[in-house]
C-alpha cells in the first residue's frame, strides 16, 4: 500500500512517458529530448558505424578479420561531436533498438542435406527433407510479405556449416534462421518446441546436441576463438535473443492451437557453430520432434508443415517490425 501522493506522482510520470512515446510516433523527426547521455550515445553510434555492419565493437582485437568488409576505409567519427573520449576497454552493450535496424533480406538454412540425413523417424520422414520443405514453405510466406529470402540450399545437397554462413554473409542478409527437427529421449516420450541462439551452456544434453550439429564444421580452434571473441560485445547477441523469442512465441502459439499439451522447451543458448560466423542475428529453431511418434505423424502432414511455416514467417515478421522503445525520457 502506498500513499495517494506517491500514486499521483507515479501517474504523472507515466503519463509524461506515454505522451512522449506518442509524440515520437506522431513526429518521428522531432529532436530527441533525452538529457545528459546524448553525447555519449552519439559517440557510441559513431564508433559502431565506423566498425562496419558486422557490429564488432571490441576495442582490443587479437587478430584482424580476414573475411569481412575492411574497417580501415570506414569514415572517422564526426569531429564536431563533443563526446566523452572513447574508452580504452570494451564498449558497453548497445541495445539493438538504438539502431532501429530494418529487415530486408532473410537467410533460411534448412539443416543437413545430401549424405547428412539429420534425424530420421522412418524411411520417408527424414530431417533433411522436412527442413528443406519447411524452408521453402516459409520462403513463400516471407516473399508474400515483401521480404527477400535466400536459402542456404534449395536442393538435397550437403553444405558445410562454414559455407552456410558464407552464403548469409555474401547475400548481405539481415537475419539467419536455421531450421531443424529434434530428436529427444524416445523412452520418456519427450516432445516440444525449442529455439536456440548462440551462446555457452552448461547443460550436457545441449552440449552433446551442439557437438553433433557442429561435427564436420570445417572450423579450427583458432577460427572459433577469433569469432567468439567479439560475440558478447556484439549487439547481435541481444537481437538474436529477440529474434529467438519472437519465433518461439509464434511457433508455440500456433502449434498449441492444435496440440495444447505441446511442451514449451524454451529459448536457450547453445554453441551451434552454424550461428557463429554469420554476422547478423541468428537462431536455430527445432520446430518439431521426430523421436515422438505423434509429432512425427503430424510432421508428415503438409497442413501441419504449413502451420509451422506460417509461424516461422510470423515470428520473423514480428521481430522485423518490433516497436520503438516505449520508455520516455529518464
Amino acid at each position, binding site marked *: 500500500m502506498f500513499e495517494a501522493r506517491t500514486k499521483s506522482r507515479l501517474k504523472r510520470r507515466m503519463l509524461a512517458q506515454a*505522451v512522449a512515446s506518442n509524440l515520437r510516433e506522431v513526429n518521428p523527426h522531432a529532436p530527441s529530448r533525452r538529457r545528459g547521455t546524448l553525447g555519449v550515445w552519439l559517440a557510441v553510434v559513431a564508433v559502431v558505424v565506423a566498425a562496419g555492419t558486422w557490429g564488432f565493437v571490441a576495442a582490443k582485437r587479437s587478430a584482424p578479420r580476414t573475411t569481412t568488409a575492411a574497417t580501415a576505409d570506414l569514415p572517422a567519427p564526426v569531429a564536431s561531436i563533443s563526446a566523452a573520449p572513447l574508452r580504452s576497454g570494451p564498449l558497453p552493450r548497445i541495445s539493438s533498438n538504438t539502431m532501429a535496424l530494418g529487415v530486408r533480406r532473410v537467410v533460411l538454412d534448412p539443416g543437413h542435406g545430401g549424405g547428412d540425413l539429420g534425424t530420421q523417424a522412418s524411411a520417408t520422414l527424414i530431417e533433411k527433407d522436412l527442413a528443406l520443405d519447411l524452408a521453402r514453405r516459409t520462403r513463400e510466406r516471407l516473399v508474400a510479405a515483401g521480404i527477400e529470402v535466400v536459402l542456404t540450399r534449395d536442393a538435397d545437397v550437403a553444405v558445410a556449416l562454414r559455407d552456410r554462413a558464407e552464403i548469409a554473409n555474401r547475400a548481405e542478409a539481415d537475419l539467419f534462421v536455421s531450421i531443424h527437427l529434434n530428436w529427444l529421449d524416445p523412452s520418456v516420450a519427450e516432445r516440444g518446441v525449442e529455439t536456440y541462439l548462440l551462446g555457452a551452456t552448461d547443460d550436457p544434453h545441449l552440449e552433446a546436441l551442439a557437438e553433433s550439429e557442429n561435427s564436420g564444421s570445417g572450423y579450427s580452434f583458432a577460427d572459433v576463438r577469433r569469432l567468439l571473441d567479439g560475440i558478447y560485445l556484439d549487439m547481435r547477441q541481444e537481437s538474436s535473443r529477440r529474434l529467438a523469442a519472437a519465433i518461439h512465441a509464434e511457433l508455440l502459439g500456433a502449434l498449441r492451437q492444435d496440440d495444447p499439451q505441446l511442451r514449451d522447451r524454451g529459448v536457450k543458448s547453445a554453441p551451434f557453430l552454424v550461428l557463429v560466423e554469420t554476422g547478423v542475428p541468428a537462431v536455430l529453431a527445432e520446430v518439431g520432434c521426430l523421436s515422438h511418434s505423434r509429432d512425427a505423424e503430424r510432421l508428415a502432414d503438409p497442413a501441419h508443415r504449413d502451420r509451422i511455416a506460417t509461424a516461422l514467417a510470423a515470428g520473423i515478421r514480428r521481430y522485423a517490425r518490433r516497436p520503438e522503445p516505449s520508455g520516455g525520457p529518464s
Partner: protein
Amino acid sequence: MSEKNAPKPVYVGIDLGTSQSAIVCSNGERHTAKSYVGWPADMVARKLVKKRVLVGQEAIDHRTMLDLHRPLEQGMIKEGSEKDLAAVRELLRHLLEACGLDKSNGSAPPVRAVVGVPAEALKVNRQQLRNALKGMVDGLMIVTEPFAVAYGSDTLLHAMIVDIGAGTTDFCVMMGRYPTEDDQRTLTMAGDAIDALLEKAIRERYPDASISSFMVREWKEQHSFVGKPRDRVQVTAPVAGKPTQLDITAEMRAACEALVAPVAETVQDLLARVEPEFQDRVRRNILLSGCGSLMKGLKEALESELENLGGAEVSRVKDPIFIGAEGGLAIAQDAADSDWEKIVG
C-alpha cells in the same frame, strides 16, 4: 471563436478488441459493441436491413445477408485489407455515435481519445490505427491495453496485469514507470484459440451436429470453466435437423484449460525478469482482466500452476469489460491540455 466560448473537449477511452470493443466517455456515456461490421450484400439485403451498414450484434444477427467483417485480428487491424480498414472506421463511428460524438453533424465537441492496443502491437499497426481514426477524433493517444487497465485500476507498482481477450492475452509488469518492451508480452493463445479448440472437439464428438463458430463462442461465453465442473454443460444444437441436447462438459473444460499453461509460463517468465527483491510482491499481485478473466475457476487454476514459485495471489478487476476503456479515459483526462496540443500538432 474566443477561447472563452470554445467548446470543452470530451475525453474518451476506447478498448478496441478483436471480438468486443468498448468506449467510456467523460460525458457519462459507456457502450460496448461486438467487433463485427457488415454491409448489405445486394439490393435486396439493403432493402431488408434498411441501413447502409450494420455494426455489432445487429451485424451478427443479419450476417446471412451481409458482407460481414471482423476487422481486427489479434487485437490489431488486419493488414492489407481496405475493407477491414473501412470496417474499423465504421466500428469506431458506431461507438462514438453511441456517445453522441458523431463528427458528421458538425456540432460535436472536440474529442480527445486514448485507445488501447495489444502489448506487442507493431509500429505499422499503430500507424494504421491512427489513419483509421483520422477525422473522427481531434487528438489520439495510443497506449498498450494492459497499461490502460493498470492505470484505470490504480495498479501501478509491483503488480502484473494479465488481460485475456479474444485475439490476444496481454501481460504487463507494472514497476511504477511506463512499461517498456521487456515488461510486456502478447500471446496469441486467447479466446479465439479456445473457441477453435472447443469447436474442433465438439465436431469430433458429435460429427452429425450442425454447429457454427458463433454458437460455439456463445456457449463458451456462457459456460467457460477450468478445473472440476460444478454443473454439466448442456447445450442445444440441431442434429439431422432435430434440436438435440449435447453434453459438452469435457470439451469445454479441455478447451478452456489449454489457456492455463501458456499464461502461467508467461507469468513465470516475466516474473523472472523482475528484480529479485520485488518478485514476491509482484507474484502476490496478479490482476486478471478482459472477457477471458470471467472464466470460472481460472484464478484458482493459475494459483495452483504458480504454486511451485512459492505461491501467487491472483485477483480479477471488478469490471473486466470496461476496465480497459475506463483506464483510457482516465489517461485522457489526466493528460494536460498542453500535452494534447503537442500531440495534435
